[in-house]
């Protein structure tokens, strides 16, 4: 019997297991999903990884196997120094990856549309409208229908879709709540959109992932999925803060700073979000 291959394969297998191990950790990433989008993403991740394994696993096995079996010292193995082509193998090594990429491509096309962040999440309840403004180094969330605003806390009713319109009043940023939905950039003078939903009440981490300066690492916020009653109370609490967010107050908020605790604003000047965007288009042709 041949000596067992001194292989790198166990190592390789371990590595494959590493990212997948995340699936079962009670973490705060999308492998611990708390909303339909993140759950679909976690599932998609596993599907893609398994399909890829069809190409990857043979490499893990064959590399040490071939290297050891055809080592110089092993006179028992055949040696064909001039063999350099085989049509059946050629068909196989082009065909299998092509087939996998075609299947992945079909899945990709379907899921990119299904999980498009711009696509409203199907629900019997109309989505809650939130406007997010990326600032240095905090997030301002404006609730146009509730006429309140809050720094570094995004509360919403669980089991109800949330539609977030996003812009930035500084450099580019990126809004991510890993357990709920993927990220979208925030850019000054422009609006991007993100639809998300939480299945049940809970508290999640939200963050900016795009480096934007010295307070970048502190730019975290709490996403709070609440029961409808709790949400109403939360809104009431914000209204009770008695600090209206007008142009003067906004100018102060927009200055560079980090915010440790959420700051609530009891009223918001109408159209503030639009003004923040239009600020970068002084001459807007109708």
């Amino acid at each position: 019997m041949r000596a067992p291959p001194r292989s790198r394969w166990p190592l390789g297998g371990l590595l494959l297991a590493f990212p997948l191990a995340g699936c079962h950790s009670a973490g705060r990433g999308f492998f611990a999903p708390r909303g339909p989008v993140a759950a679909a993403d976690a599932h998609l991740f596993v599907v893609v990884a398994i399909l890829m394994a069809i190409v990857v696993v043979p490499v893990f096995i064959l590399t040490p196997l071939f290297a050891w079996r055809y080592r110089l010292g092993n006179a028992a193995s055949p040696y064909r120094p001039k063999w350099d082509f085989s049509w059946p193998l050629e068909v196989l090594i082009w065909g299998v990856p092509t087939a996998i990429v075609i299947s992945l491509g079909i899945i990709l096309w379907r899921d990119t549309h299904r999980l498009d962040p711009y696509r409203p999440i199907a629900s019997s309840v109309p989505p809650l409208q939130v406007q997010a403004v990326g600032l240095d180094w905090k997030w301002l969330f404006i609730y146009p229908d509730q006429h309140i605003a809050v720094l570094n806390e995004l509360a919403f009713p669980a089991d109800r879709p949330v539609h977030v319109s996003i812009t930035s009043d500084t450099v580019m940023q990126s809004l991510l709540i890993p357990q709920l939905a993927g990220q979208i950039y925030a850019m000054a003078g422009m609006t991007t959109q993100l639809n998300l939903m939480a299945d049940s009440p809970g508290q999640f981490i939200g963050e900016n992932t795009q480096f934007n300066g010295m307070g970048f690492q502190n730019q975290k916020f709490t996403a709070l999925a609440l029961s409808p009653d709790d949400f109403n109370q939360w809104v009431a609490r914000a209204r009770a803060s008695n600090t209206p967010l007008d142009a003067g107050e906004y100018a102060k908020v927009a200055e560079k700073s980090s915010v440790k605790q959420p700051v609530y604003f009891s009223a918001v000047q109408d159209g503030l979000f639009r003004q923040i965007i239009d600020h970068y288009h002084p001459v807007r042709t109708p």
Partner: protein
Amino acid sequence: MTETRGVWHLLLGNLTYNALPFYSAIAAFAAGLVVVGAISVFVLITWLGKWRYLWTEWFTSVDHKRIGVMYIIIAFIMMSRALIEAVLMRVQQAVAINSPGFLPPDHFGQLFSTHGTIMIFFMAMPFLTGLINYVMPLQIGARDVKFPLLNSISLWLTGGGAGLMMVSLVLGKFSTGGWSGYPPYTGIEFSPGVGPDYWIWAVSLSSIGTTLTGLNFATTIYKGRAPGMTLMRMPLFCWTSLCTSILMIFAMPPLTVATALLALDRYLGMHFFTNGMGGNMMNYANLFWLFGHPEVYILILPAFGVYSEVISAFSSKRLYGYTSLVCATMAIAILSFTVWLHHFFTMGQSANINAAFGIATMTIGVPTGVKVYDWLLTMFRGRVRFTPPMLFSLAFIVSFVIGGMTGIILATPPLDYMVHNTVFLVAHFHNMLIPGLLYGMIAGYQYWFPKAFGFRLNETWGRIAFGCWVVGFYLAFMPLYVLGAEGMPRRSQEVFDTAYRPWLLIAMIGAFILLAGLVSLFIQLRVSIRQRDSNRVFAGDPWDGRGLEWSVSAPPPEYNFAAIPTVTSRDTFAGQKERGQAYHPPKTYQDIEMPKNSAAGVVIGISGAACAFGLVWHIWWMSILGLILIWGTVIVRSFVRDIYKVIPAADVARTEARWLNHVANVRPVPRELETTLANKGLAESVA
């Protein structure tokens, strides 16, 4: 920064003593190290009296071999700095969990920016350019590249950029905008310091040098091949060099344009990428990645070429599926221009656009997968020898497919929304660049080193280095996949989740082991130089090589080939050895005309760096003088008619006779003993 006034401002621009790095002990120490290092090198060379030697034999040389070696020296120096920076960042993240750590955000931001910029532009690019420079002309049977002086100019422009990077450590602060320098953050409004200017001009010098290199290599491969060396007979390394050159020619200009427009924003108050006044940073993202994605393949393709050479040579077998590999390489080169948008799936494009670019990205997986299987089948029914270059190649194959898998994950837009901008992405591209690019560069360095210097590298230290690079890579980057899936953003100076601690500690240990890998390479070099007399392989063929580069002495004579060889098949030298036609002198020797040394490259490189330095600090006289010197040199040089020297036939005959005599008198080595002192560079023929 205090304003300087009057004559001082004219002389020194914005440069004041405030530019010295006293804001942080670590930065001041690093700056001190650079200054002391530079002074010691200067003193040492003076003390040894080697300035004249360096000037005539190296700095002004237009010999592709010398230029190749100098490129790789730049790569190793810059790698040392950038790897130490990586270790600092890993230590910072491991200790800065709910605590500020020891690096302030400002310093941390500079570190990830210089680390990335250096590793891409001043480590990876010089390394691969150096290898191609050294090997490709030898492989196609040429005496030099087609434009030898241009080659020297490219080298010195890259050197100038690298020098500017080192100066930025001493004077002023570097950009904190990352290696991709995204505006508006790097615009004047948000980054008023000199940092982004350093980045812009260092990268511009390098990208201009690289564009010229691409033109040079492509021309050399199209027009400089020996008779009979048809394109489909070229070694695969030449094919990957060709594809890389084509990518350089077409991909570097968008970068030069992007950095130039950013410079116009910063210097002249224009609004290409600003927030207001009609500027739009999305244009920058598109321009940058129009360069940035092909750049990935500029980096990886030469490494693919190295693996093809190494695996075939150390399996004592023809490369499996040559045509397939050529097609795959070309396919990758073309497809690389169709996928740039996957770097910003999250910028709010429609699902149709994201899906189209996602599928285009996945398509690249097909030729890449084919290549991996072609290398596996090259080992199949071969005689595999586990030398360090081969070990690196094997580790590459296994590790690279992991990176390929995570690459496909990132190419799937919904998954990219989740892990984009997190350390998952950092783990992915390091997975492609360390086992992919760097293992290839190290394998190539170990494989061709005996050719370049005439003695083999120490095997034991090669294996130790291999162990460190492999173990270090897995420990440093596998944890980042996990943390990225957990949503940890990249570029975080401080971390707030204690659950990350064990992973970050493992990653830190990995970074130290990677540093040990680099140190092992230096020890290997030191030990090998000491033992060089017993490890000489002057006969020139220590690995039973297959390409023409092994058919000449080690090191090769200045003119490479006494007579330009005639090629009749692939694996030319292997065929010659088989047919007993190797080591046959030509009937007569002829005078050989070679390009003369020229100082033009040095002058242009230094002037370019001076111009850039002047631009950074607004020292306008220096910039103008630099520009005038560059143009002046080009004009003066165009009037120089006496640019060739002749190596007389008698000298060639003497050199060749000495070598052929040696070949006739050394004992051929069987493959089993190739790593022992018995290896004198003559391969035993396998009958």
